[in-house]
């Protein structure tokens, strides 16, 4: 029973989350009540978490997308240019941002299935390319690298309001909705099995009749579009958008996926894990502000805690898997433990 619980991919990431919290409370002197009431880490978790979900699925399928870094500002700038600078109705700005995400995602996906270039390089190219398109496009169309936007009330309340009159952004709700949707896709539908199979071995997946190419393109569309969605929400919330590189977002999102227990090599992971991973990463990142530790040390502490969280995650999973398989009496465990852990429904 317990081993069953521990073998769930999300269990390890929950434990590393608790470890991070314990560190901050015991060593950093963090007031847990204040931390829980504050919105900063939850807002940040939602920002990276919405993108981390599809990126996690993509990584489980054995690919990676780093163009997401450019797609967050691209979504924000598209919204602000269409509905702010040209003053077109808000709905065009929203559709425009999502459309840009779909186009770039399709380009990534088609290149990934049609060429032999690794997706790290393909999406590096679209990352840098989009940074150029966004800066040049913004200067060309608006003459400025920063565009103000006044969103109408309905758009604010759906995408960019602060809830409960406090500091919690409405994207937190979107994050939860996305998480439930992705949980259903990965763990309750046949598409989830396809994704795990693709991460295991593409050729056998293809031979088993899985539409590998179509799924790959679809996953790339999802990553890019979710990134431009986050950018769009930000532009509406903060009444403006500015050109930026988004380099940090890339590492933060991929790191939170890995903290969430997804293997960089693919084939293993879970949506609850990715969800908790984004939470953990956000608390590591923002929790430092709640400690009495001098800010000059913050990056060192963030680095050490990330490493510790992933290491805990890894070693815990190994222990859990070996305990679980060791306890089994029936000789049914010939299948690799990794696949067993990953493909179970959660």
């Amino acid at each position, binding site marked *: 029973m317990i081993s069953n619980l521990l073998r769930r991919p999300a269990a390890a990431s929950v434990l590393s989350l608790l470890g991070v919290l314990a560190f901050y409370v015991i060593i950093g002197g963090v*007031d847990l009540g204040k931390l829980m009431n504050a919105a900063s880490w939850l807002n940040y978790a939602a920002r990276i978490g919405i993108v981390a979900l599809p990126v996690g699925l993509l990584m489980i399928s054995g690919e990676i997308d780093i163009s997401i870094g450019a797609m967050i500002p691209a979504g924000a700038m598209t919204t602000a240019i269409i509905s702010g600078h040209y003053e077109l109705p808000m709905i065009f700005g929203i559709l425009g941002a999502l459309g840009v995400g779909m186009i770039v995602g399709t380009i990534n996906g088609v290149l990934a299935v049609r060429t032999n270039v690794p997706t790290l390089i393909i999406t590096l190219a679209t990352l840098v390319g989009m940074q150029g398109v966004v800066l040049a496009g913004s200067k060309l169309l608006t003459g400025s690298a920063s565009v103000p936007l006044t969103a109408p009330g309905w758009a604010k309340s759906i995408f960019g309001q602060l809830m409960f009159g406090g500091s919690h952004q409405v994207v937190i709700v979107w994050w939860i909705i996305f998480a439930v949707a992705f949980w259903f896709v990965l763990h309750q539908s046949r598409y989830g099995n396809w994704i795990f199979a693709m991460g295991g071995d593409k050729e056998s997946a293809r031979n088993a009749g899985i539409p590998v190419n179509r799924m790959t393109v679809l996953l790339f569309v999802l990553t890019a579009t979710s990134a431009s969605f986050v950018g769009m929400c930000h532009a509406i919330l903060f009444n403006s958008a500015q050109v930026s590189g988004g380099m940090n977002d890339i590492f933060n999102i991929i790191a939170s996926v890995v903290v969430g227990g997804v293997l960089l090599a693919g084939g293993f992971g879970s949506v609850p894990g990715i969800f908790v991973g984004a939470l953990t990463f956000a608390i590591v990142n923002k929790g430092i502000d709640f400690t009495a530790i001098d800010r000059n040390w913050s990056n060192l502490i963030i680095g050490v805690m990330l490493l510790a969280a992933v290491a805990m995650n890894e070693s815990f999973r190994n222990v859990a898997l070996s305990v679980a398989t060791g306890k089994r009496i029936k000789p049914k465990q010939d299948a690799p433990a990794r696949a067993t852990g990953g493909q179970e429904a959660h």
Partner: protein
Amino acid sequence: MKLTKAVAAAAVLAIGATAVGAEGANIFVIGGKPDDPFWSRVKKGAEDAGVVAESQGGSVTWLGPQNYDNLGPDAAELIRQAIDQGADAIVGPNWVPEAMDPAFEAVVAAGIPLVIYNAGGIEAADRLGAMNYVGAVDYKSGYAGGEYLAEAGHTNGACVNTLPGAANIEAFCNGFNDGMTENGGTGSVLQLPATAFGDSTAVAQAVRAHLLQNPDINAMFAIGDQDTNATISGVQQAGKTGSVHVCGMNFNDSILANIQQGTQACAIDQQGYQQGFFAVSILNNHVTYGATIPTREILTGPGVVDAGNVDLVIAGVEAGAR
């Protein structure tokens, strides 16, 4: 074992500090990255003023973004975080008004005393209902650089903007261009993506390429001390040392050495230490004793550092005064 003891001791100290901090004024200061040389000076000023706050049982907490990629929204988040953390007073720069104004308004609405510093000017303080503005006027700082270079006969200037969208940086460049044109020269802007800020190699390469493409440029203006060093490196790589003259915002040891050696024409000083120090002092005295500073707009710059006064400034740096 020793490590465990040290960790435990650190924990006790940290918890102790928090407990004491509950009595006096807990002041939250929103600023730049702690590893940004200019902002580390502001941070030192804020913390030096914080010594007084701490002696009264208060504290000074520095909140800065980890990078400048998403400056306005990140800073707005930090302002709201300071409210959530129970700040008694808040100091913040108004870098991106569209993104940050609602957060500052929330500070004032919560009845928390607010001082705007470094960016935004007294206009921002008035608009937002802040007590005061402490800082240089960005436009005048840029203007001083343009004026200095144009009067020295270097009349074709370019401003290197590595933080597009930040209001104060746009003002530096506008001021620089006006300082140039109103003194008989011409000005332009070399716009780089925000990722270039603080990335010396990227800035140097961009400057080199820009100078080779535009051989008429003989004056450049950079918006921060790291960018100034990178710009000078770009000028050297383009083989234009001596024919392209560089002024920049802020200074550090290497910039002062460059001014002494003549590789940099001038530095425009906004005295970051003063900004952190006075913003925190004003708020601490206000929260603790109800004292006010009736003078509105506490100016900390611009001041021009050039070959004529650089030795005095270096003496000031050694004495810890600049």
